[in-house]
């Protein structure tokens, strides 16, 4: 049972609230399976000290994640990754991907790039993803659950850059 949370990188001045940055990264770790159901997270006090942020920020992030089904609090024992975490976080990552597709469509229209060209570029991009990862992605059902960890990581990173 891992007690150590993988590193969280914070950019206090980036305009994204710190609790949100913590939430996004914990979600990314659960979506990619780095954090698994039952893994214990650091205490509020410890994580506040590690990240050098106000403990109320950690409380905020943890309660939102708990509310969203990613984390669960076990009375007197601490905070753990919830059983529902993978399903929830993969679904969220897929929703992000969907929004990126909408964005891509809008940009293509704005630039006057025809649909056929966008589809060809997409196919070319997909062909550079290693075989194994692609097969996993194709097997994933629509509610998520067995998605390619690599593809999800890319979704998260692309989302950060917006």
């Amino acid at each position, binding site marked *: 049972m891992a007690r150590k949370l993988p590193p969280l990188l914070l950019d206090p001045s980036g*305009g994204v609230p710190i609790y949100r940055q913590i939430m996004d990264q914990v979600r990314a770790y659960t979506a990619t399976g780095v954090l698994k159901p039952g893994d214990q997270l650091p205490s509020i006090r410890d994580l506040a*000290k590690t990240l*050098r942020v106000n403990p109320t920020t950690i409380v905020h992030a943890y309660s939102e994640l708990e509310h969203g089904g990613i984390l669960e609090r076990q009375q007197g024992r601490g905070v753990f990754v919830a059983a529902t975490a993978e399903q929830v976080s993969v679904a969220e990552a897929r929703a992000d991907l969907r929004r990126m597709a909408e964005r891509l469509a809008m940009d293509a229209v704005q630039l006057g790039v025809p649909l056929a060209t966008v589809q060809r570029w997409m196919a070319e991009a997909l062909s550079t993803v290693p075989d194994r990862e692609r097969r996993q992605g194709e097997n994933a059902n629509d509610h998520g659950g067995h998605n390619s960890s690599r593809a999800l990581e890319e979704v998260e990173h692309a989302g950060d850059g917006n």
Partner: protein
Amino acid sequence: MPAMAIEARGLCKAFGDEAALDGLDLAVPEGSVYGLIGRNGAGKTTAIKLLLGLLHADEGNALVLGLDMWSATPLERSRVAAVLQDWQAYDWMSGNELCVHSAAFYPRWDDRYAFRLVDGFELTTAMERPVGRLSGGQRRRLAVVLALAARPDVLILDEPAANLDPIARRGLLDALVDVLAAEPSPTVLYSTHLISDLERLADHVGIMHAGSMLAAGPLDALSASVRRVQLVFDHVPQPDLSLPGALIMEVTGLVATAVVLGVSDAGLKALADRMGARLDVFPLGLEDVFVELVASAERRAAPKAQGRLVGARDERRPEGFR
């Protein structure tokens, strides 16, 4: 509504004919970490001295823990501890002697905690020397030790990180996080120019300008109220293009960029749709929010003299879109 640990209304204070505070309102919720930011001369230090009862207000009133510190008893005052910028007194005393001295004034003085802080701040050897012979950074760290070890209900810090090198600043940040993680933790009022430190610690922020409060509220809400937007048009937009809530706007060819205050995402989206423009919204960090709000207030104060209008180029604007 939570109780207020610090509450000031209509504070005015002039030095000669120079107004330092001009109707300042300040409300710090109990248990919060309140960051006070503002340009040099905005009145932060004067406000803090009025709160502590070190100066008397010309008008208005200031309550800390419901008490006017100007007339509070020593025991009541001991619930409040501060780190001030111009700490001069007791230069002949050593740090150790100062701890003994402070212990006499603060009933909750925590000697073991003081010792731990001295160690964490790398002050152990400096504690033997007279305070007057310490470096600026050492004096500042010693002042923080004295304030924290007093275990106050309200902790007031005026530029505590001034004169500190980056390593010492981290030490200070660590000590403050440690204090906040303790039960019960004090209410903290913290003035600083180091906005990135503040973004880590503060849950409430007040932006002071020209002796009064320009904007105040929960950090996340304040940050989210100001955004940078970009509109991309199909056709060159009307020359009289305007955006509601725009603090400043600039149109270059098909692209309009603006900083807007207090307009929701949905409002912006509806506006862009109506204009047939593509919309991008960029969140701003607290530092950019501060710069934009203060620059806008300064433009309003002297619009003619500086020849600035909304839409004109503002040289003080930070770098363009990220």
